């Protein structure tokens, strides 16, 4: 790229002020709403903020935000819930999304458009609205989901999805499956459309069966987009808040905190208890978790590539 810049010195794509004028709003925005709050969050996380003035607490003392969070069983509950939700989202949702994308990829274009539209549609509805809907859909005996389950497999009419601490998280996973499977499907579909058709034909001529073709040709070619989808869904899952909050009608995090997520924990501390310092500390922990997991996923998938 630098060689390119040298060559085009004084060329049409150079202008002394224009690019900076176009970038000025972003630079201003980045300074005020990215850099400043980022540092401010770091500053806040070392302070106790619920009193009239902020007090520096650092890493020691009984008011240390980080120490408090790391010894709070509720934090671990939130971390566990969110992690289960994230793993379930990836392990259940993404294979189904990929499967649907492969079904669509082999269909004719008119059918493809219609089904894509239908399966994607729940994504238009915000998590709050979905929460309001499913608070009714999950009603024992009378709700759509309970009745549907009973009709299909003869089980579950009396299940209290929103009151039973063991069922709340599975309920959330089912809702997120409904909401996001179409969204991930669109990404997989885009990946599948760029798979080399000639390679597929060559494999077929060589007598590879469907599973072998998928494993050795399709999968390696859609790997970049698959990694992208996995990381995006992990990041999204770790920031879950609106859906359980609306499902619990804005009154808490379910029986035994069974729908408490990390962001829910952050909200609880920051805006129900007014501890912005603790909220910032949780924010930084969340950022660190997301960062570490993304790096791990990138490393793991690259290790697989070397094989």
């Amino acid at each position, binding site marked *: 790229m630098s060689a390119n810049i040298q060559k085009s010195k004084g060329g049409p794509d150079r202008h002394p002020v224009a690019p900076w004028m176009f970038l000025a709003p972003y630079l201003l925005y980045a300074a005020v709403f990215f850099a400043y709050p980022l540092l401010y969050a770091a500053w806040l996380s070392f302070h106790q903020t619920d009193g009239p003035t902020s007090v520096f607490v650092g890493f020691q003392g009984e008011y240390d935000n980080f120490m408090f969070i790391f010894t709070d069983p509720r934090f671990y509950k939130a971390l566990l819930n969110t992690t289960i939700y994230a793993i379930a989202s990836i392990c259940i949702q993404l294979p189904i999304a990929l499967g649907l994308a492969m079904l669509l990829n082999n269909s004719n274009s008119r059918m493809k458009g219609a089904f894509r539209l239908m399966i994607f*549609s729940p994504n*238009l509805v915000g998590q709050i609205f979905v929460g309001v809907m499913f608070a009714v859909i999950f009603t024992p005996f009378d709700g759509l989901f309970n009745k549907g389950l009973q009709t299909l497999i003869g089980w579950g009419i009396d299940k209290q999805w929103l009151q039973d601490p063991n069922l709340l998280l599975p309920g959330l996973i089912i809702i997120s499956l409904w909401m996001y499977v179409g969204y991930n499907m669109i990404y997989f579909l885009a990946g599948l459309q760029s798979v080399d058709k000639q390679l597929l034909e060559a494999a077929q001529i060589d007598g590879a069966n469907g599973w072998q073709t998928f494993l050795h040709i399709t999968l390696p070619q859609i790997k970049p987009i698959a990694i992208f989808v996995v990381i995006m869904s992990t990041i999204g899952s770790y920031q879950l808040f609106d859906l359980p909050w609306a499902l619990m009608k804005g009154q808490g995090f379910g029986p035994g905190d069974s729908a408490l997520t990390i962001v829910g924990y952050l909200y609880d501390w*920051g805006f129900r208890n007014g501890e912005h310092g603790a909220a910032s500390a949780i924010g930084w922990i969340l950022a660190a978790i997301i960062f570490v997991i993304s790096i791990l996923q990138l490393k793991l998938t690259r290790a697989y590539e070397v094989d």
Partner: protein
Amino acid sequence: MNLIHWVLIAVVLVYIGLRLIPGKGWKIAPAYLRVILLLAAAFLTLTPFVWLICSAFKSKDALMLYTFLPDWNHLRNFPADATHPESYKAIVHWFGNDGLPAVDGALGTLTLANFRRLLTDQFLTPHGPVYFWEYIVNSLFLSCGVTSINIFLSSMAGYALAKYRFKGRNIIVFIMLGSMMFPAMLFLAPLFEMVSKFGWMDSYLALMVPSAITVFGIFLFRQAMVGVPTSLLESARVDGASEFRIYWEITLPLVRPVTAAYCLITFLGTWNAFLQPQLFIQSQSKLTLPVVLNRYIGMYVQDYGIFLAGTLLAIIPPAILFFVLQKEFVAGLTSGATKG
């Protein structure tokens, strides 16, 4: 054994039958299976929407009694119908005797009562009553405002990155990429303190300014604008067009599909946003739809129909926008992931 089981058995039998057709069976059967699976997925996806539409038009008492639309025969004889004593008991159990219909058949009528109550019920505040339509107007205003400002500012920055070479460009791209790694929730507490310091509490400035530009949008526009031929821009420059006019009148119209896609993404994000309006807006007359629906659902547990009617109304504007822009949307959503 119910209807659905018979349908499933029929589907499997047809599949086996197709498979057995000599010669062509191995080709037709998978195609058939593919359509069946896609139909099943579409059916499962759309059922909650069908249920939502039906529920919004059912009376309070009929909401839980019927899964979708009221059963015609059941209705006409209700509540004298002796064949459904369980349902009758269920009503008494859930709603008490007061909930029983006064007139035979009243349960069965599809009704606009939910919408009527939703739109006429007023929320009394010291500054006068607030109606539901005001929340719709607020949400529309906020979403349209944020969307237009965001498209304008993000596309400008994207244009600078796509069509100019200048010192420090790589550093700016690096900062942008870095900023995408931080979750939005990290900024919530400092933003709250900043908003109170700026005096933006209870003002739409608190919602519009922090979402006036996104790095995602900048990259989306950059990706699209790289493809606009530089010679075109150069000839405009020779003709004496200003740099801003080249961006505004030549480049931006050429990336219409991405603009449409980003328009929908931003509109949806603002329309569905919950935490920021929940935290920064206090006046009843300035609330947005997600906040209102969430805040009052706990209070009207017996009147879910009203909330479902409200949810239905809240889904309509994004749905319209989606149907108008859906082709561009799918292309724009995936362009960053496949090309970049």
